[in-house]
C-alpha cells in the first residue's frame, strides 16, 4: 500500500495525463468510427478548457458545472461546425478542421478573456485522478455500447461504404453530425479537466500537433475497437517514462522511437495494437459480434 502511494507520488501526473490523453483519443474515435478524418478535436478540447476555466475563474462556478459547461460549449461549436464541414471528405475534411483549429488558436491568442498568448491563469488544481478515470470509463463504456446501437451500426456502415449505407436507409449527414458533436463534447470535457489540472491553459496546449497526436494514438492503438485509442494513448504517453526507466535519455531518441512505432504499426498492423488481441482468435470461431460491434 505504501509502495502504491509512493508510485502515485512519482507517477501521478503521468497517470493523469494518460487518462486525459486517452479520453481525447477516444473523442476522436467517435469521428473516426464513421470514417471521418478530423483534426479539430484538439481545438474542441481547447474550447472546453477555456470555457471551463472562465466559468471557474470569473464566475466561481463549481467544478462539475464548469466541466459540463466546457463540454456543452464544445458540443455546440461542434454542431455548428459539423453541419457545413461534414460534406467534405478525406483530406479535405482534415484540412477544414485543421483550419478551424488554427482559427480557434489564433482567437485564443488575441482575445482578452482567454488571457492572450500567456493563457488563462489562476485555474485551481482541482481535477482528481479518480475523476479522470471515471470519465474515461464512462466514455469507453458509452463508445462500446454505442457500437451495438442504431447509431453505431449506421456509423460503421458509413465508414465502410457511404453510398451503400445511404441505400440501406442511413441518413449520412445526420449520423456524421451526431458523431462529430459527441466527439466534440467528449473532447471538450477532457479539455475542461485538463484546465483544472494544470493551473493554466494556453493556446499552445491545443494546436495542430496535439491534433496529430490524437490521430497517432488512435492509429497505434487501433481505431476499430473501443480500447484501441486508450491503449495507444497510454503507451505513447507513458513511453518517455518507460524509456527513462530503461536508461534512454529523453529528446531525440524518444521522438524517434515514437516515429518508428507509428511507422511499424501502420506498415504491419493496419488495425493497430488492439488487433494483436483480436487476431489470436481464428476467424471461423469468431461469433458475429465478437470483433467489432
Amino acid at each position, binding site marked *: 500500500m505504501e509502495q502504491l502511494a509512493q508510485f502515485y507520488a512519482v507517477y501521478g501526473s503521468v497517470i493523469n495525463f494518460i487518462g486525459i490523453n486517452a479520453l481525447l483519443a477516444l473523442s476522436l474515435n467517435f469521428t473516426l468510427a464513421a470514417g471521418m478524418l478530423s483534426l479539430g478535436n484538439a481545438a474542441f478540447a481547447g474550447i472546453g478548457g477555456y470555457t471551463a476555466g472562465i466559468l471557474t475563474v470569473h464566475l466561481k462556478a463549481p467544478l462539475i458545472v464548469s466541466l459540463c459547461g466546457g463540454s456543452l460549449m464544445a458540443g455546440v461549436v461542434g454542431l455548428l461546425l459539423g453541419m457545413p464541414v461534414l460534406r467534405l471528405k478525406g483530406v479535405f475534411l482534415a484540412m477544414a478542421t485543421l483550419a478551424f483549429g488554427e482559427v480557434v488558436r489564433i482567437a485564443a491568442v488575441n482575445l482578452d478573456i482567454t488571457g492572450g498568448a500567456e493563457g488563462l491563469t489562476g485555474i485551481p488544481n482541482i481535477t482528481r485522478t479518480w475523476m479522470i478515470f471515471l470519465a474515461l470509463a464512462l466514455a469507453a*463504456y*458509452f463508445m462500446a*455500447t*454505442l457500437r*451495438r*446501437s*442504431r*447509431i453505431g*451500426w*449506421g456509423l*460503421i*456502415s458509413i465508414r*465502410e*461504404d457511404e*453510398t*451503400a*449505407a*445511404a*441505400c*440501406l*436507409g*442511413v*441518413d*449520412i449527414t445526420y449520423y456524421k453530425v451526431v458523431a462529430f458533436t459527441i466527439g466534440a463534447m467528449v473532447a471538450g470535457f477532457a479539455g475542461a479537466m485538463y484546465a483544472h489540472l494544470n493551473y493554466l491553459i494556453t493556446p499552445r496546449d491545443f494546436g495542430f500537433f496535439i491534433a496529430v497526436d490524437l490521430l497517432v494514438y488512435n492509429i497505434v492503438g487501433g481505431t*476499430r475497437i473501443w480500447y484501441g485509442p486508450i491503449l495507444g494513448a497510454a503507451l505513447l504517453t507513458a513511453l518517455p517514462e518507460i524509456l527513462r526507466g530503461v536508461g534512454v535519455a529523453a529528446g531525440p531518441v524518444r521522438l524517434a522511437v515514437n516515429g518508428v512505432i507509428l511507422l511499424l504499426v501502420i506498415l504491419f498492423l493496419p488495425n493497430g495494437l488492439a488487433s494483436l488481441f483480436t487476431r489470436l482468435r481464428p*476467424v*471461423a*470461431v*469468431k*461469433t*458475429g*459480434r465478437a470483433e*467489432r*460491434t
Partner: protein
Amino acid sequence: MNLSVDNISRSFGGVQALMDVSFEVELGTIHGLIGPNGAGKTTLINILSGVLPPTHGQVLYQGLSLHHLPAHQVAALGVARTFQNIRLFPTMTCLENVQAGQHLTAERPLMPRLLRLPSAGREDRELEERARDNLVRVGLGDRASHPARSLSYGERRRLEIARALALNPSLLLLDEPVAGMRRGEAAEVADLIRSLVQGGMTILLIEHNMAFVMEICSCITVLNFGRVITTGSPDAVRRHRDVIEAYLGSERGDA
C-alpha cells in the same frame, strides 16, 4: 400505384446518359431492364434509388414521387438495391453485413443498451435470428461468421441480396444479380427471386444473362444509348427489330 418512370433524363457534363426514359413496372412482378453496355441501365437504377438526382422527369412509386429524395429516404419508402460492382462492407462478417442492413427495420435504441435492460438483449437476439434467416434464404447460412471479403464472387452477390432483403423492401432493384455466377448458382437465385415475388415484392433487375432474363421476367424494357427502344413481354422483345439491331449492331453485344 405502379412504379412509374416518367420522362427521366440525366446528363453528365455534356454527355446525355438517359433521355426521356418512361416505362411502368407493375407491382408484384419481375421487370427486366436490358441493353448494351453504356445504355444507361445503372444510371437509371441510381436515379430510382436516390443515389443520383435526375436532370429532368419524375419517378412515382405507390403514388409518391421519389426523384427528389435522398437515398436514405428512398430506402425508407421500401426500396432496396444491390450494386453492379458489389458494395458490401468488406471487413464485416456476412452476418454483420445483413445486420447493418436492418437499419430501418430495427430500433436498437441506445438507452436500454446503456442500462443493460433485458429488452435490448432480446432485440439483438431477434435481429440476429432474422439476419441468419436472411443468410439461409440466399444459401449462405453456413457463412455467417466469415468476413465478407473471403467470399467468392457469386457468394458476394448473394450476400448483397441478403443485405437488401434485411430492409424488408417492397421494391427490390437488382443490378446484375447473377453476373459471374455458375449456371446452378444462377438458377438458385432465380428461384429466390420468384419466391420473393410470390411474397408480394416487386423486382426490377438489370442482367446481361439473356436466358435468365427471358425466363424470369414477365416484362422487359430495352434501353439503348439512353433511350427506351421498347417495353414488352419477353417474346415481344425478342422479336422486336430495333432490339435485334441494337444488339447485333453493337460491337460489345455480349449481352
